């Protein structure tokens, strides 16, 4: 229902740009769009988990940077052979993501402080750590095999890194809809106390969602350096906000409990297509930023009306039932 609305909006947008931007439909442009939405999609997958459970994670952009510079250092290290360095750097990246995510969740849960505050702190810690570690220098000349993956195209226009993002979306969707863990994400997001009093340790699940979110930021870090073939400590700035925007446009309730991975995916696609189409139409960066902000607000308002209508319909049906 909710997803259908975003899906229709996305299709209309694509049709609009196909008509009004001559270069929009070319394969090279499609390839561009896919590349542009990859990172946001990956981070938004993790963000969906955290927002569904009623939290927020502002540290993902910084975690991306930290994991990127750490794994880049391993990759360019002269003392480690490339065949060892690649898996090692990937593991390091994922590991640092999970650890920071776990810390975000554990501190939030232990002292019952809103995750906004904790992850705001962590955002600065991770960014500072990345800057300190690299001394603000840029790392380049990454191994060729590694960088090659970042620019591989399947069928000539689908980037391999986008396939990675797509797989993560599908796994995320599966976890949310088909697993016990997913059930806990939704129920805790709706009413944590009821779940706790039903005999469950809710903290475990909440911390796990933060760990997943951190892991996604770590994965995004690896993808980033594979794609850009450089790493420095200031990459990924503002990515957390882009991811949150995608999740919210995707129809996930900011207070938790309601939403879906499909929605998030469509939300990220919508922003990507909008940005790309506007660039092709020659709209300036500043105006684009304004438009994305506007879309976010409008999407939330439309969602409000949609909810009102569906509640009214539901009420009517229920009344009908109890009359009979």
């Amino acid at each position, binding site marked *: 229902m909710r997803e259908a609305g975003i899906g229709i909006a996305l299709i209309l947008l694509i049709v609009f740009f196909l008509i009004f931007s001559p270069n929009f439909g070319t394969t090279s442009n499609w390839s561009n769009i896919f590349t542009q939405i990859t990172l946001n999609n990956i981070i938004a997958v993790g963000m969906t988990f955290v927002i569904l459970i009623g939290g927020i994670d502002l540290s993902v952009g910084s975690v991306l940077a930290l994991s990127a510079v750490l794994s880049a250092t391993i990759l360019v290290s002269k003392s480690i052979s490339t065949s060892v360095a690649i898996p090692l750097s990937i593991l390091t990246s994922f590991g640092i993501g999970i650890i920071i995510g776990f810390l975000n969740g554990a501190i939030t849960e232990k002292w019952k402080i809103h995750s906004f505050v904790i992850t705001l702190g962590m955002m600065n810690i991770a960014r500072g750590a990345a800057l300190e570690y690299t001394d603000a220098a840029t790392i380049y000349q990454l191994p060729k095999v590694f960088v090659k993956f970042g620019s591989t195209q399947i069928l000539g226009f689908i980037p391999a890194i986008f396939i990675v993002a797509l797989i993560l979306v599908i796994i995320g969707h599966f976890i949310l809809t088909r697993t*016990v863990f997913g*059930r806990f994400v*939704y129920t805790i997001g709706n*009413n944590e106390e*009821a779940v*706790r009093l039903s*005999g*469950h340790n809710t903290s475990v699940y909440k911390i796990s969602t933060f760990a997943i979110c951190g892991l996604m930021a770590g994965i995004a870090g690896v993808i980033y350096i594979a794609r850009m073939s450089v790493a420095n400590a200031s990459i990924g700035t503002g990515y957390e906000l882009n991811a949150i925007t995608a999740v919210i446009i995707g129809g996930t309730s900011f207070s938790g409990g309601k939403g879906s991975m499909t929605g998030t995916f469509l939300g990220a696609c919508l922003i990507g297509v909008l940005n790309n189409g506007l660039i092709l139409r020659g709209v300036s960066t500043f105006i684009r930023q304004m438009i994305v902000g506007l879309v976010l607000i409008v999407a939330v308002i439309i969602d409000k009306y949609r909810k009102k209508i569906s509640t009214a319909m539901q009420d009517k049906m229920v009344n009908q039932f109890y009359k009979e």
Partner: protein
Amino acid sequence: MKNVSLDIREGEVHVLVGENGAGKSTLVKILCGIYTPNEGEMYLGGKRFNPQRPLDAIQAGIRMVYQEFNMLPFLSIAENIYFEKFPSKRGLVDYRTLYQNTENIMKEVGLNGSPQDPVEFLGVAQKVLVQIAKAISTEAKIIILDEPTAALTSKETQRLFDIVRQLNKKGVTVIYISHRLQEILEIGDRVTVLRNGEKVDTQEVKDITIPGIVKMMIGRDMETEYPFDPDVKTGQEVFRVEELKYRGGKNTISLSLNRGELLGIAGLVGSGRTETMRAIFGADKRIQGKIYLRNKKITIKSPKDAVKHRICLITEDKKMQGLILEMPCSVNITITDLTQIAKLGLLNYGKEHKVSKELIKEFAIQTPSDLQLVKYLSGGNQQKVVIAKWMFRKADILIFDEPTCGIDVGAKYEIYLLLWRIAAQGKGVIIVSSNLPELIGICHRIIVFSNGKVSGEVERDNFNQEEILSLAYQNYI
């Protein structure tokens, strides 16, 4: 609502009764300008009254004391009473006048404490009084009380009635909504019965009886008010609590429960009943205490531990603590034990569907489907969902905190029957209730709490309302 006509006289207590969903709340919300009627007219003091928003009703002198207290918890009593119109001097709040006025009005409604006390720490009864004080401060002509006594003890209820009578003397009209029929006879002048959004009748209180009202409310005669099955015999002890002290408690509490027994816990609100039960269940931390299940000592540190031993707590506040309102019945039922419907962490929706349907049928939960969101169910059906979820977990010891609070008469009887069915299966049931006739009606044994201590224990043969009440008040002197 359909075609409801109603007249309310100045200075009377007009009681509205009816089962949940009968339209009482809708009716008063129209009076308060929260809803606007599709058809029909209202007259106030002979003049056309057509409130479009709550402010219109407030300006016309209509005030509502809400079931869910709409208060500003972190602000003081004085600020809560006067926040709509602070006494001021040159644009600044005049605190001296504010506190003076508040003190006077607190005296009038019998509210103890200081005007500067924050509202969050007040008891339920005091919060009701603060709301009434606010209504008085604005010189309301009509005060609507929606279930004001739901969480009050009988003593507090009496004080509330005194205040209502005083208000009547001053010419204030009171519209009173209550599920407690006994109260109608005591405080009401006239009573209007609603059913399915229609008015059944308005009668003088002196002309009616409780069975008569019940008949009007549910549209049929009711059998007995409380079921009690003398054939169900209680067995050996299954559960025992020794020397338990909850956080903030001054004394230790011990109690035991037998197989097939309905054990009532009586006492005033704030006497430590709920705190004890929450501490047993591990919902709140406890300072000390041993718990035995079938004579074996068990450790309960969290609700998870309790549920592992098949001990469950059905809290009073179902909406906040028992149910996930925005999710379907099936999810609410299976949340207690997802292992039954999952394999290797993967949910089996078909199985969930099947078991939920079975339980919905078994407990006669009225819902169009197991996928219906719980928020759309009536209070009685919601309570049944809570019971179903614990039966799904195969709970052995069930602790109910106010199982029939806010549930209408017809549904109450069904809940009592359910409690009996559970006990007859050989499980142990503890029922905490402020409604003494209810405990006397359905329990085998009653333990009385008074000021944080167990003040007595009474067997069914010796049940006596006066004695239990005096035990409940024993430690307050």
